[in-house]
């Protein structure tokens, strides 16, 4: 039986849904599971960790792990992987995971697969499916090593609400600090802003907004929906939106329940960032805009005219 270690995704002291999703998939393919949680003051997360569905929990809880640092975080994962004798180590999709996974793979002499959408056992070896070339193709990759480290695409696996774990806690010793790459400071994003990667609804603004007024108009829609507020690369390059708001291949990959592309043409790099969304609504003046090829619902119109009506209609429906 395979042994899968899932790295818990913890953001601002909260255990994210990807943890349960990954554990559910691991259980579904018949693996024995464990979870490793790394951070500072995370003891209170233990019930959530157990609830996420693993049979074993490894916890590295130390003040020195309060801020992310790839070296020490990788060391904790490797420690847990060795103690558990994991065949596979899975991470949810995040910047931290992308920084840590290759280190863990190198240290465990394991293959490393990023952004996988599926994992299968095929005649004695593992195979994974992953998108490539800005999501234009899928690769079927054969893993030749006994062990594999993978970063899983956002929303690739579904959480099994029935899955429950049992409490078996192992506390890991704090790892040595990375003396040559020292995290000095974290300049956080505005605390009240909704994280794009977690939002159930994401509203993104594109070049159709034309100016700051347009941006504010779409932002108001996002706020009324309590949605994440994102942007196309064009708006980031033009200085209207911060880089961390960019949805796309060179920005964030999101997979919300509802994605609203407002004034966005649908360049392939943008699509790579959001085509995993459950439902896509597009608003664009140009009936030929490529975004309409992927949108479940498309409104051809000027966003300055449509967005106020959208806001009105949504208010009506929700009251």
């Amino acid at each position, binding site marked *: 039986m395979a042994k899968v270690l899932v790295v818990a995704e913890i953001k601002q002291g909260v255990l994210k849904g990807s943890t349960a999703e990954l554990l559910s998939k691991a259980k579904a393919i018949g693996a024995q599971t464990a979870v490793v949680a790394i951070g500072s003051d995370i003891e209170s997360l233990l019930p959530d960790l157990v609830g996420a569905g693993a049979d074993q929990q490894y916890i590295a809880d130390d003040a020195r792990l309060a801020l992310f640092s790839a070296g020490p975080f990788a060391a904790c994962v490797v420690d847990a992987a060795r103690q558990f004798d994991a065949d596979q180590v899975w991470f949810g999709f995040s910047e931290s995971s992308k920084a840590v996974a290759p280190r863990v793979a190198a240290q465990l002499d394991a293959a490393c697969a990023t952004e996988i959408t599926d994992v299968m056992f095929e005649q004695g070896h593992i195979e994974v499916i992953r998108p490539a070339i800005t999501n234009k193709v899928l690769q*079927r990759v054969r893993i030749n090593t006994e062990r594999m480290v993978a970063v899983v695409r956002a929303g690739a696996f579904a959480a099994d609400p029935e899955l429950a774990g049992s409490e078996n806690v192992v506390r890991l010793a704090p790892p040595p600090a990375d003396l040559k790459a020292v995290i*000095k400071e974290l300049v956080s994003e505005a605390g009240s802003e909704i994280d794009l990667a977690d939002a159930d609804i994401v509203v993104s603004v594109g070049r159709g907004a034309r100016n700051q007024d347009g941006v504010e108009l779409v932002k108001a829609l996002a706020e009324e929906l309590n949605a994440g507020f994102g942007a196309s690369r064009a708006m980031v390059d033009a200085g209207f939106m911060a880089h961390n708001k960019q949805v796309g291949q060179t920005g964030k990959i999101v997979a919300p329940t509802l994605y609203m592309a407002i004034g966005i043409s649908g360049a392939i790099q943008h699509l790579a960032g959001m085509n995993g969304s459950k439902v896509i609504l597009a608003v664009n003046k140009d009936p030929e805009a490529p975004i309409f090829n992927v949108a479940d619902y498309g409104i051809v119109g000027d966003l300055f005219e449509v967005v106020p009506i959208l806001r009105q209609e949504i208010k009506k429906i929700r009251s």
Partner: protein
Amino acid sequence: MELNIHVKDGAIVEDGLQYVINAWDENGVETAVQLKEDSGAETTLVSIGGGDNTDVIRRCYAMGIESGMHIDDPALEKADAFIYARVLQKVFEAGDYDLVITGKQAQDTDNGQTGIILAEYLGLPCVSNVIGIEVLDDKHLKVSRSGDAGTEIVALELPAVVTVDVSINEPRLPQMRGLMMAKKKAIEKMDLTALGTSADEIGCAAPKSEIVAFMATEKRSGGRKFEGDAAEITARVVDLLANEAKVL
């Protein structure tokens, strides 16, 4: 210009495809050239595999890179990130480098592993997804990294590896003069033997992973597109979102 990829019998059809420098690597080249201009750094480019890379390397020279090498060997055909990292390890160990710069990921594989694995093999500190670099002194950089909770400021001791994100800079367009001079500049070409190693030492015969097939992505198809009176169609769509799709 739209890139159309055709998959036939599990492989990508290469006819008519033009190869260009990886977008993120271009930012890496620009980072190096800026370090040359601002801090007197000596810059060397290394490119691995891919057949005829001359145009791409010349373009980097035209941007300001001082020397370059192209390492190509039939044994590298199935190279994965780990094998590329071993080759780069050999290059690093044969020289006297303080900083290795790679792009954060490759536009074709979208893997994002090579630079980080190289740092592990070399036992060097590494910061990935870098969006800003400040030189503090000969041995120290202050780098900004785009992390999950915000921008992480890291004090980095050299020698080190950084992988850069597109937002770090705007790669310059090579000027005509640069392009003319680049045509005369040599590119050191080496196979694995010339590099002082072998296919066996690098582990070429046993990549940790290999692509066994390419498949077309399940095309997400468009649903319904509404044109006409804005008030009418918008109301209709909101109703569908709430009652049909049930997402509102």
